[in-house]
């Protein structure tokens, strides 16, 4: 964090120039020390900015020009969450060096202001530099930051999951390490300085084999619609909008088969307590709260899903199987039965304008609209509301030992909200996934970018790529070459965001891919779309998965898409997962292909880490080169094979014999490559002898 770096720098400088002795003769730290000052920065084109700190009732203070349009002011904030505004020429701006913001009422108007959680400079602090888990052990290192008076570290203790852990101290550096079981652990370190003041800091980490989110394969489960508590398939629904009876135990029991399919992360739909009965949708038909997106409680798990016990059991079993758990959270709104609504009316929108109405059109930006009259929208300009919604997310991740969150309705909230959630989670586990749902249309990269970047979300759903996959493989309204261009556009538009995107062929808000193929995508959600019998539907679904598993990011499988489950609009797109006994042969074959793709991807660093280059494409074929270090894979997706595609290989792709990692088939590539693969095929070619080939030791 910027502030921290400055503090370090300041302190390093300050400590260099030695100081007159203090009242105490406690030994001085050789390491960094806290500073009571915080420097506020801003860069302006014109005008003279002033800084208005909340702890001084927002009274304006001058800033000093530093040159080049930069201004700075040295502030002395009290400890705890604080805010300050910067005003220039009547406009309010935020400090660009601090990612987190909040809203404060200044002169009667709610303004976005810089937010930071100030450490107590009269106390020491502990700063974790790194926590490195492995499957059976971990190491960690922390730095003791002395209080402003510089008193040195006197003693330090630590616990792992409550049990004592030795700490090695060298100067101001604390090192810890220990064996530990698979799963999530809590590390707490306490340090006392020479003046007897104590500080405590904690981290949560997941011990697994080496993992980064770029290696994730996510399975999206809608809890009510997946499996019953006994792990068996749910009965079919008389009314598509009724509860199906899905249970968290059903998700837990499915873990072994998900792991066998290559899944290493499960994203579960929201588990807040939900209202009983039904409420009218925009179409006037009754809907139950089966989906979980209507919270009536901040911190209770829906009893019909199995309550807290079932969620704990799921997370525990998942971690033991090296599967991560990502929970869907809904900070944007509550159901009107939620206690917050009655207790804190000011936390919610005043005029219930319905999103999509003439007064609140979808494309007019962030208006405080409600999704439905009974879903009050959180008013983030109320600081108490803002803090409560962020803290509820932090609480859930902490309480249930989760590995990340999927954040619902990101663009319906101010960007400040998702940034503060990222910040709150990072304090406990900086590796926690923050996967935001920013629902955009084709080419909607500006919207996606807005919420990513430094201090922003770690991940979002790649909706533009999803639309392009559907247009090319499901609808047939775009060429495979168009899809190649979409792949390149995705790469270029997101390159500097640092994000790891979730790649999907569909989700719970759009008609099922298989139904779009046969033209049932427009079907009303209460008139169930038939399960297609034409094997070609599943081959086309396989093409879409084939490209998803060959691109950088986190392939994300919406439950059922691995068997080409049918479904029209909402709620038919969320029909119960059918029992395996009823799957058609082409459905099984699709799932087997997807599992194979996941297995090869898990083996191949080129597929997970490589750069992306489209090296050949035409209306029906796409060849994408993925290169990482010395490894290379050519992903070839062929929609139709009425002709062939030729062209010179790039200089760094060697001619010779290549092997398809998926099937083992060999292909000889000359200097002028000829792509003549059969229709509806996916190939992941690697140079012959690649360890990830079928039957080779690695796969």
């Amino acid at each position, binding site marked *: 964090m910027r502030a921290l770096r400055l503090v370090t720098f300041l302190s390093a400088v300050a400590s260099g120039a030695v100081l007159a002795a203090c009242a105490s003769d406690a030994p001085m730290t050789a390491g960094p020390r806290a500073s009571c*000052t915080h420097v506020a920065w801003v860069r302006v084109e014109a005008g003279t900015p002033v800084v208005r700190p909340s702890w001084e009732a927002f009274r304006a203070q001058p800033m000093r020009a530093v040159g080049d349009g930069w201004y700075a002011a*040295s502030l002395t904030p009290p400890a705890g969450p604080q805010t300050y505004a910067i005003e220039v020429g009547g406009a309010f701006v*935020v400090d660009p060096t601090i990612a987190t913001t909040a809203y404060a009422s200044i002169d009667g108007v709610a303004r976005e202001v810089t937010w930071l959680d100030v450490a107590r400079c009269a106390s020491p602090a502990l700063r974790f530099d790194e926590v490195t888990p492995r499957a059976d052990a971990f190491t960690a290192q922390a730095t003791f930051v002395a209080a402003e008076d510089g008193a040195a570290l006197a003693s330090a203790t630590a616990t792992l999951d409550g049990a004592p852990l030795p700490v090695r101290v060298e100067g101001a550096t604390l090192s810890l390490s220990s064996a530990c079981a698979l799963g999530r652990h809590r590390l707490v370190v306490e340090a006392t300085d020479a003046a007897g003041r104590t500080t405590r800091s904690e981290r949560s980490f997941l011990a697994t084999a080496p993992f980064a989110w770029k290696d994730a394969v996510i399975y999206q489960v809608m809890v009510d619609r997946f499996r019953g508590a006994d792990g068996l398939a749910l009965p079919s629904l008389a009314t598509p909008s009724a509860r199906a009876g899905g249970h968290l135990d059903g998700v837990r029991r499915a873990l072994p088969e998900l792991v066998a399919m290559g899944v290493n992360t499960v994203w579960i739909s929201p588990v807040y307590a939900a209202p009983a009965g039904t409420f009218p949708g925009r179409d006037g038909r009754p809907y139950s709260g089966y989906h979980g997106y209507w919270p009536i409680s901040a911190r209770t798990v829906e009893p019909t899903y199995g309550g807290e016990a079932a969620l704990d059991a799921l997370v525990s079993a998942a971690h033991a199987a090296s599967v991560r758990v990502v929970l869907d959270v809904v900070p944007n709104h509550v159901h009107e039965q939620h206690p917050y609504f009655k207790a804190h009316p000011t936390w919610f929108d005043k005029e219930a304008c319905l999103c999509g109405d003439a007064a609140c059109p979808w494309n007019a930006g962030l208006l405080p609209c409600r999704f439905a009259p009974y879903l009050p929208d959180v008013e983030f300009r109320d600081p108490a509301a803002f803090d409560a919604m962020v803290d509820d997310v932090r609480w859930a991740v902490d309480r249930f030992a989760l590995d990340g969150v999927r954040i619902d309705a990101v663009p319906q909230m101010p960007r400040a909200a998702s940034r503060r959630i990222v910040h709150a989670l990072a304090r406990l586990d900086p590796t926690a996934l923050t996967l935001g749902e920013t629902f955009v249309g084709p080419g909607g990269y500006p919207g996606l970018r807005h919420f*990513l970047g430094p201090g922003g979300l770690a991940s979002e759903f790649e909706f533009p790529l999803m639309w392009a996959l559907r247009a090319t493989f499901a609808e047939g309204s775009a060429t495979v070459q168009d899809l190649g261009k979409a792949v390149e556009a995705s790469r270029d538009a997101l390159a500097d965001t640092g994000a790891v995107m979730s790649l999907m062929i569909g989700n719970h808000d759009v008609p099922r891919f298989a139904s779009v193929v046969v033209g049932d995508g427009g079907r009303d959600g209460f008139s169930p779309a038939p399960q297609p019998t034409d094997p070609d539907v599943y081959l086309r679904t396989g093409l879409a998965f084939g490209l998803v598993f060959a691109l950088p990011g986190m392939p994300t499988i919406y439950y059922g898409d691995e068997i080409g489950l049918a479904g029209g609009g909402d709620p038919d797109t969320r029909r119960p997962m059918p029992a395996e006994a009823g799957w058609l042969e082409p459905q099984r074959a699709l799932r087997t292909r997807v599992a194979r793709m996941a297995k090869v991807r898990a083996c191949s660093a080129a597929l997970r880490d490589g750069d992306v280059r489209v090296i050949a494409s035409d*209306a029906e074929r796409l060849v994408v080169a993925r290169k990482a270090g010395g490894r290379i894979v050519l992903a070839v997706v062929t929609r139709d094979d009425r002709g062939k595609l030729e062209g010179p290989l790039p200089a760094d792709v060697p001619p010779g014999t290549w092997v398809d990692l998926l099937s083992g088939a060999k292909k000889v590539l000359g200097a002028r490559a000829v792509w003549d693969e059969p229709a509806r095929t996916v190939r992941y070619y690697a140079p012959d002898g690649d360890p990830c080939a079928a039957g080779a030791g690695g796969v």
Partner: protein
Amino acid sequence: MAVLAFGATTGCGDPGDAADPILVPDVGSYDGGNFDGGIYGDSATPTDGGGTDTAVDTKPVCDDTLKRCAAVFTYSGAATTVELRGDFRPDGWTKGEPMTKDGTGTWTVTVPVPYAIPVQYKLVLDGTNWITDPANPEKAPDGFGGQNSLRAATTCTDFTCAEPDVPKPGVFDWRDAVIYFVFVDRFLDGDSSNNGSKISGVDDAGQYMGGDWAGVKKKIDEGYFETLGVNTLWITVPYNNANDYGGLGVGGDPHRYSSYHGYWPRDVSKTEPRFGTLAELQAMVAAAHTHKLKVLFDYAMVHMHDSAQVYKDHKDWFHASGCICGSGSCPWETTGDRCWFTDYLPHWNFKVKEARDYSVGNAVQWIKDTGIDGYRLDAIKHVDGSWLTDLRTRVETEITPKSGQRFYMVGETYDFGNRDYLKSFIDPKTKLDGQFDFPLRLKLLQSVLTRKAGMGELASFMDGNDGFYGSSAVMSTWIGNHDLGRVIHMAEDTPMWGDPYSDGKDRAWSSKPGLPGYRAPFERLANAFAVLFTNKGAPLVYYGDEIGLPGAGDPDNRRLMQWTGYSTDQQWLKDRIAKLLGLRAAHPAMRRGIRKTLSVSNDLWVYSLTTTGDTVYVAINRGDTAQTASALPAGSFTELVEGGTVSSGVSIPARQTRVFVAK
């Protein structure tokens, strides 16, 4: 790097050196932009964050029709000279490419061949010996009873771009066709002596109404079609029908109809007497040709009427009776190739070679007897594919060498969604030149007429649709036809039918619609025609739609053509169509050009069309308020629809199209 000194900190520290340097932080250059702002006003961080510049792509970009791939041809035999001849170039059969011997004694030449199109070729040894390529097993019929070598279609990543071809003056190309569908029985009664008598039991709307070829010829001679700006006539089925039979409608329709439409053939070797004699038919076609109009006949190959002698004599040439389309065991979707549309229409079985030879032979004979220029093939998906490939082979063998002109075949496959299926019938070498673009019609209807979708959706559909059927396909694009409620009613303020797939038959017999009495529907229909007339394809005008003729579904959408007493709105529409077709004829960019969207919003679509030597800009406002076209390039433009000089920022009135060329 700027430096700032700060005053003292509190606490035990030294007050601090006034010269303590503090570095301006590096905030990076990430630019998350503004996301609609919204009432919260997400602050864009006040840095100078800039986006990353993407490198300029220097690869050539051109339409698939202009792309060329380098293809190597070789010959390893003995010869003094070897030349490559083939259709890799328009004049490639007459003017070949000499091959040269390489170091190993192999003759070789590299030529650019069209992208994604198979190439037929031969090698000419020593100037006189034409042979197929011995090293290539792939062959195709050469139209003279022999075979050519066939190089399969390839695409390539290292294509070059050929110059766009400009239409040669005086040479007809089907990409320049504008088709007018003449529903003969309802067009004009030119000779009442051949009208025949009414058929008992048949409702008035289903009776023959007297239109004939003499009437069509009259309008040809008057110049009706050239004035309107069409150049191709699609004439309903000309051969003898069961013209004394009153048949119940398809699928349980309780009304009775005559065969006025021509789709109930009784004797395909004779003309239909109620339309005229063979001599009159030939005279009509000749008159059309004199007026530089091409003629397509409707050919109905799916079934015969059960009174046909050929059915009585050869029941084994037909699929068994007892399977009626839409009945329990014979759904349309799965038995469409053999089910009978009604119990009096036996379905041909073209897997039987004699049956196929009979029918294809007949189709070819009509061409020879009348000199027509193409066929519209009714319900082509309902017959075995061999009928179509046989017809194309015979046409290329027996007709094209003599006429020297491409014989155009457009198919009717009634499907608004499945483009892959439509495409499966299209291959100018062996099957159709194109089909009626049903999927485009749906999008055009929804974006321009019923306004349920925005112009953006139409634009992006067309961007993906333009090349979908292949670079040498010529699709017939349309907005109204004889199987749906008259399109003027879908252009009303409230579309008459909410369901875009509705056939409009619910009002065909009662509550029949009247002529709209206000301008807006006519303007909207003109806009739809404007999209068709300013883009590639062979656009279709269904008789009567040029004057917004009213009517619900079949048979009410086949009312007698109205020739006089037009309302001002009807006249306005007709004049506007003529104006737009005049522009199409004058501007190759509209017929051959590459379209580029300059701006598109829900209501307004502005695009350019470019070909060598011609660039045109089109602005179509489907909204009910004026819109500003601000995406035109800098400079002055002449507006071609209403006249005048304009520049970017010009206002496009509600429900209007404007066309611009740079001054």
